[in-house]
């Protein structure tokens, strides 16, 4: 049971972070390979709040997420302001996450706090249980769904499709991008906090570039402009290697290879542009009714 729990919790945490990347990369079309940096910021802040200030962990997670969101605006504003369509931003996220990781690795002391440098920062454990992660995941999914179907979400999709046309139609580019980025970084921050609560410590080694590529992989494999696709792949990408015990190095080689193959042959990913809904139930019911009436006609 403990093993299944581990997979459920780690999978759930990965899905929360991947939903954030999906909102930014999948829906708004902004490439990021630095989301591990936001995870680290949110994770460390919530860990410090829980341990040093005995804040309730739910509140600490939210504050951690908000902190990651605010930090993301600091790199988002200058890079979105220049009109060079996202490249500055991608490089800035990469530089930012590497800088954060190196800083956490090398700083043992922040003011009066000892955050442990590369040894990591231990916190009380036992709070990231399966129900907590499942509730967080459901809330995250619900909110993401509400966001992408709202007017803001539609603006994001418009930007991803054609920035110039979107601006012509009155979409405020800078504001829409910043909103998407803030939400995306908030998700990453909460996921980082949950990760610390599960492992009972925070370590800079959690937030390497490998973590960022895993999140990107979930979105690319799962599909652009889809929430349910990344949801499934983010979970499978955590669960499958644990179950199959595939070697870590081969996993990353395969990821890279799949990135290229998917972009060349099926750029929309597994479930690109497909959204979770229950229309198939309705459609199936209609089909069933139709078939019945046909067979009845045949009898008459």
């Amino acid at each position, binding site marked *: 049971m403990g093993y299944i729990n581990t997979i459920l919790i780690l999978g759930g945490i990965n899905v929360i972070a991947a939903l954030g990347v999906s909102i930014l*990369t999948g829906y708004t*079309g902004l*490439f990021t*390979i630095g989301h591990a940096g936001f995870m680290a910021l949110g994770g460390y802040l919530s860990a410090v709040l829980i341990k040093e200030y005995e804040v309730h962990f739910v509140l600490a997670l939210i504050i951690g997420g908000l902190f990651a969101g605010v930090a993301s605006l*600091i*790199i988002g*504003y*200058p*890079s979105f*302001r*220049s*009109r*060079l*369509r*996202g*490249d*500055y931003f*991608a*490089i*800035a996220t*990469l*530089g*930012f996450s*590497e*800088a954060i990781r*190196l*800083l956490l690795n*090398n*700083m043992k002391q922040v003011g009066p706090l000892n955050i442990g440098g590369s040894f990591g920062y231990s916190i009380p454990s036992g709070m990231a249980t399966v129900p907590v992660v499942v509730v967080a995941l459901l809330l995250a999914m619900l909110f993401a769904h509400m966001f992408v179907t709202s007017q803001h979400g539609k603006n994001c999709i418009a930007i*991803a499709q054609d920035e110039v046309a979107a601006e012509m139609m009155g979409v405020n580019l800078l504001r829409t991008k910043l909103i998407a980025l803030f939400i995306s970084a908030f998700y990453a921050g909460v996921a980082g906090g949950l990760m610390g609560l599960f492992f009972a410590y925070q370590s800079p080694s959690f937030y390497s*570039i490998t973590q960022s*590529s895993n999140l*990107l992989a979930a979105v*690319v494999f799962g599909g*652009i402009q889809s929430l349910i696709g990344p949801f499934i792949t983010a979970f499978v990408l955590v669960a499958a290697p644990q179950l199959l015990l595939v070697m870590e*190095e*081969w996993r*990353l*080689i395969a*990821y*890279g*290879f*799949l*990135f*290229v*193959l998917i*972009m*060349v042959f099926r*750029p929309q990913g597994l479930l690109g542009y497909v959204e979770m809904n229950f229309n198939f139930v309705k459609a199936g019911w209609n089909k069933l009714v139709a078939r019945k009436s046909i067979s009845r006609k045949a009898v008459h």
Partner: protein
Amino acid sequence: MDLFLQQLVSGISIGAIYALLAVGYALVYSIYNFTNWAFDAFMAFGAIMAFIAIASLAMPFWLAAILAIVLTIILAVGTEKLAYKPLRMRKAPRLFMMISAMGVNLTIVQTMNKFFGGTFRKFPVDSVQPIFIGNVSVGRMDLLAGAISFGVLALLWVFLYRSKWGLAIRASSIDIQTASLMGINNDAVAVIIFGLTGVLSTVAGVFYGIKYAVFPMMGTITIKAMIASIIGGLGNLPAAIVGSMLLGVLETLVAGYISSTYRDLFSFLFLIVILLFFPNGLMGKSGDEKL
């Protein structure tokens, strides 16, 4: 004063390596409008090929370097044909190009990690006495690296601005479709561009390997080159060189006078400050920035 001069010298020598890398990014960006994330994999690949040629096959340095350059050109052109060309042909969004490039990067770097091992290795060249100018010591390899880097950049300039192929590349950078309507062979331009990035990345990789160490993840240094090319102005060759020199010298001064812990953080903060006050980089023109 001596300390300052010493820092300046090592700043310029690392800046020269950044310049090679930044120019490689700028070349691809100026024509295909995407950041070639696979570039750092080419750099590590070139350095490791040179390392193997010297350490295992006992080749002389110059022969190993040429072999590494040829192999990296093949790799770079090969990835262009397999990973980018199909996307370009159907005019895929830039996001897809970047993801594909990231995939190439992951595949190459992790394959090297698997077969070469992730350990740091010293590049097998004899260490030679540095030259002293007053009290400032200048490594002979630094000098060679600087000279060859500037030589390569000068040759590139001559190629771009004084040859017919260079004209074709510059025309493509303004508008690739119009250029192809005027009879410029797009595929040939792509082969030349990616071949050039192979040369630039290998030269940078070998000298970086000599200066520090050879390992599959050595390409992460190219983040600095990207930052430098943004500071200068993306897609603009002279700006990339100026940005690289500036970043190389400033970060070496920070490492020397404050702490090497803050060097990378400084580079990043510098980028943010530059973007706040110069949204298109120091020398970038607003709107379309080209070669």
